[in-house]
């Protein structure tokens, strides 16, 4: 499955792209993770907060190609995307494994994926550097077998997404 998870509405969502699933986080009701470990130790694989996030993390887990579109804040994802990423932990087990020489959580049924991250906003060189290092770390915890990061201004987002969609649909 090809998936786009965006923190804003995009015109491309209104078009017909049968091979791509779109998620616009900005219109969903997603509460903050409360760090209760319920998805690991009470209802494994399921978040105890039954809001819209429970429809999104199974899609993220199943996707083989994924495009994240997020505003960047302080060198990381801004609130909307970060809230979803924190609610994504039911896709992992509590248990720890060694992965690339570091300790990380064991993944449940999460497809290895090719990821593209479009970070947008007025992003300084220092923020870009930190964000790239963040995505490098995310890759280990979010099953990216490969990834690329692209930075664009707010008004270049639509074009950047369209370019990625065109590559997927080739």
């Amino acid at each position: 499955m090809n998936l786009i998870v965006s923190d804003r509405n995009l015109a491309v969502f209104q078009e017909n792209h049968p091979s791509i699933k779109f998620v616009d986080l900005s219109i969903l009701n997603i509460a903050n993770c409360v760090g209760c470990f319920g998805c690991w130790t009470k209802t494994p694989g399921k978040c105890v907060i039954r809001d819209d996030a429970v429809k999104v993390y199974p899609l993220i887990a199943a996707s083989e190609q994924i495009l994240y579109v997020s505003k960047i804040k302080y060198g990381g994802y801004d609130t909307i995307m970060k809230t979803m990423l924190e609610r994504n932990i039911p896709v992992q087990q509590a248990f720890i494994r060694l992965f690339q020489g570091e300790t990380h959580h064991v993944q449940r049924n999460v497809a290895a994926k090719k990821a593209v991250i479009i970070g947008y906003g007025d992003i300084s060189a220092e923020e870009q550097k930190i964000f790239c290092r963040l995505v490098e770390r995310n890759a280990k915890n979010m099953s990216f077998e490969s990834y690329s990061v692209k930075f664009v201004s707010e008004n270049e987002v639509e074009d950047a997404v369209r370019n990625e969609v065109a590559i997927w649909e080739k």
Partner: protein
Amino acid sequence: MGKIMMINASPRAPKSNSKEYAKLFAQYFSSETEYCEVKKSNHLMLCQKTENFSDILFVFPLYADSLPVTLLNFLKTLEVNPPQRKPTISVLVNCGFIEPEQNNIAVEMLRLYCTTNGYPFGSVLKIGSGEAILTTPFRIFLKAKIKKFAASIKTQKYDTFQVTMPISKKMFIRASDVYWEKYGKKNGVTKEEMKTMKIEE
């Protein structure tokens, strides 16, 4: 230096390990401390309160490789409601993994925030195995490091520290298996059930 405001930005602040770390810090810090928790409704009150302190200590867990949303949102409020005199900001961050270095990105994000917004940056303590270390005999290593960390802020000889359980990664994985198995058992959930590969099925 004057007083330090310890701001716990854990999403589960009242029951968090961050609260325990803040308590230990207060024990070893020889000047006045005040403990606060970030809640959705108290951002502005906390921002106003920062006026009364020479130092801020952010205490929080690593979430998805970076700052928890609780802290991110508070920082955004603080950015538009800054104190007139900028306190020095220090950081105490913990992650559940054995490598304290996994906290580095969160520290860099806060360092950037300080540079951009004109706050002097103080000391850093990065804790690995942060979910369990408090309940193990290795707590003594943690206490010793918090003591040094607190002294560095008190004397304004700012530095970066880290601490974790002094065991091999393989031993850590075995110990964490036991820890989590017990955690599940308290909820009536077996290890096998916790190991399910299913997601929302």
